[in-house]
């Protein structure tokens, strides 16, 4: 008797992604059904269409959309993995616009030879991260490239969310006198990733801080009156220094920081010392900067600290007048230095 629609299931334990999986035929569909659709499952994906029809915008709100690419190596590191990172990253980009993230799409470019078990772990991690954040992955795409052309897997995610018009959050809104807050310790993510990389081995208990920040931003949006929450941004690639320089230039202001107020975990600090890295330039994946009117600085601080992701929140500086748009810092020692843009990639120093 002929079995109806029989197809041999993917060998998830020993199988590898091959060019067939990217050809668009039965093998592709199988990959999507058995790994992606299963992990992401929601009403949109169940339709099986190429796109998702989304509901209408509620009155008095606006769409926010953002996109992100993820090429992290290694794919797994303490506290997170490329999949979780991708979901959190895009959720956070949308959240930093003052919006509630709702829908994600993802595009996978997979290198021929990637173990199916690896892919499954990454995809399941993404699914879980999305579910935990209350976000649906509604559409996606997979392609396969020849071995040697891919570094395992590259993931792009695009996110869409809804912003109320109560607040206008932008990097152009920082004004002289505004206060700069940071939600927690810096450099944990970058160090966790570097610790895993081959040429720099050390046992450490540093975990990536990868987290979805939209409930933290929602708390701020709620607690602060319109016009008092000026800027939100997550200091990812390039670290705190780069993000603050970007904002300074966008708003055409200067920023003054106090080194002693910037939270830094002792082990992260030790790892940066060992590697000759400046923590100000190291990526964070679960932290945010908020720039607020001075009268509401304390409200913002207590709102952050009341949230599990903001327990170590701190006021780290103020916005000042500066035609050169420098970010300057009073050092722990009582001296002064510029916190410049990142030059190139932060390669560990020996000197």
């Amino acid at each position, binding site marked *: 008797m002929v079995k109806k629609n029989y197809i041999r299931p993917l060998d998830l334990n020993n199988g590898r992604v091959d060019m067939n999986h990217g050809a668009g035929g039965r093998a592709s569909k199988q990959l999507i059904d058995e790994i992606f659709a299963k992990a992401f499952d929601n009403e949109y994906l169940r339709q099986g269409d190429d796109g998702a029809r989304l509901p209408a915008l509620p009155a008095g709100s606006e769409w926010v959309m953002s996109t992100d690419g993820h090429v992290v190596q290694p794919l797994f590191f303490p506290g997170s993995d490329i999949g979780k990172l991708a979901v959190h990253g895009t959720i956070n980009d949308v959240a930093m616009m003052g919006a509630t993230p709702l829908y994600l799409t993802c595009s996978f470019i997979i290198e021929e030879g990637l173990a199916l078990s690896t892919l499954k772990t990454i995809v399941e991690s993404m699914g879980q991260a999305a579910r935990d954040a209350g976000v649906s992955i509604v559409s996606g795409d997979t392609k396969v490239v020849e071995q040697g052309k891919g570094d395992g897997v590259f993931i792009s995610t695009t996110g869409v969310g809804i912003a109320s018009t109560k607040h206008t959050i932008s990097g152009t809104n920082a004004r002289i006198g505004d206060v700069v807050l940071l939600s927690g310790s810096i450099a944990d993510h970058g160090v966790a990733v570097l610790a895993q990389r081959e040429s720099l081995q050390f046992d450490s208990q540093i975990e990536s801080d990868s987290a979805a920040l939209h409930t933290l931003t929602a708390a701020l949006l709620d607690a602060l009156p319109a016009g008092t929450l000026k800027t939100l941004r997550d200091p990812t690639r390039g670290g705190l220094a780069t993000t603050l320089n970007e904002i300074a230039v966008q708003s055409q202001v200067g920023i003054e920081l106090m080194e002693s107020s910037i939270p830094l975990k002792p082990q992260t600090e030790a790892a940066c010392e060992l590697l000759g890295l400046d923590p100000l330039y190291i990526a964070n994946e679960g932290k945010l900067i908020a720039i607020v009117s001075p009268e509401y600085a304390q409200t913002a601080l207590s709102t952050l600290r009341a949230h599990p992701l903001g327990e170590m929140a701190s006021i780290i500086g103020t916005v000042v007048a500066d035609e050169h748009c420098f970010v300057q810092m009073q050092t722990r020692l009582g001296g002064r230095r510029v916190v410049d843009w990142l030059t190139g990639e932060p390669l560990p120093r*020996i000197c």
Partner: protein
Amino acid sequence: MCLALPAKIVAIHSPTQATIDLGGIKKDISIELVPDVKLNDYVVVHVGYAIGLIEPEEAERTLQLFGELGQIEGAQT
């Protein structure tokens, strides 16, 4: 080219290899250049090698020196 850090020897595996602890981070390094090193000594580590020992009494004396209030001359060689 001088980035070197003081770290504690927390395990000695052989005459050439040891594990150091710096602020909770552990790393394996070579101790070939400090043959007299003992467990719990502090060493100065540079590019994966211990290049010298930290003398605890001298370290303490240096801190006292910072705290001195004036007339005494600096440490002489």
